[in-house]
């Protein structure tokens, strides 16, 4: 089922669509529709990644907050599910690290293959957080 949508574009965006349509030898309507669809899909994906991360993070924290054991905390199914979400979840891990200081260090290492924390700072949580946030900015992540 299709719907009619009237869109008012800025001059810059209109020119951009015109240029893309011309270079692809397509109609401006087809190009605009593709861009709109891609943007909607991208936004929807971000929301569902964010929502899933929040649900898993809260579930994980509630289950393991009283534990010290890294192996028990990080083998919890919710933590493993967050790791399985892969690179798209990294900005949310960094955001949560920044806002709540929850321990996403192992997940970040598992997903990215990096560990920016110097050995001397192992276990010094504020410095570990700073190291990962610095790493995130250097990699161009935004949160």
């Amino acid at each position, binding site marked *: 089922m299709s719907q009619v949508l009237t869109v008012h574009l800025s001059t810059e965006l209109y020119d951009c669509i015109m240029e893309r349509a011309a270079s692809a030898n397509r109609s401006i309507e087809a190009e605009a529709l593709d861009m709109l669809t891609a943007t909607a899909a991208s936004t929807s994906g971000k929301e569902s990644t964010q929502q899933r991360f929040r649900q898993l993070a809260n579930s994980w924290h*509630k289950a*393991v*907050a*009283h*534990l*010290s*054991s*890294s*192996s*028990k*905390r990080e083998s919890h199914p919710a933590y493993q599910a967050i790791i399985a979400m892969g690179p798209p979840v990294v900005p949310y891990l960094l955001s949560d690290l920044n806002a709540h*200081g*929850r*321990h996403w*260090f*192992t997940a970040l*290492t598992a997903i990215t293959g990096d*560990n920016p*924390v110097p*050995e001397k700072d*192992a*276990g*010094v*949580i*504020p410095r*570990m957080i700073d190291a990962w946030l610095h790493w995130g900015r250097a990699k161009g992540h935004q949160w």
Partner: protein
Amino acid sequence: MVDIESLFPRLCGSLYQVTSPPSSIYNCIAWAAGDMNRWWWPDFLKQRHWPAGVPREETCAAFQEAFATLGFVVCSKEVAEPGFEKIAIFADAAGPQHASRQLQNGRWTSKLGELEDMEHELHDLEGAEYGKVSVVMRRPL
């Protein structure tokens, strides 16, 4: 909000007292060791603090060795002894899960993961979450 008494049923009706706000900066092992600035655990990725030279193993032997670096030795009594500070290591089938430190008044203080510190009777934290007290160690004050 985590319900402490549902996790540790032996606290129900016991005279325990929460003595700090929650913190994810330090954990029970650090607190027992007198360190409020680091999270101690022998994780294989080496992302947590563990004393240099002590095996990064989740075994009672490795945890005893970690506390031995601070001057603690295994002792047989958990009752307070004048002139000594004591710690207790809790373990279950998977290995060590928790540590507590004895206060001057004979009661014990624990940090519950990233939750609060609390004052309690030693065996009130035994159960499904932390297992049982497996060893007590002491050092001169």
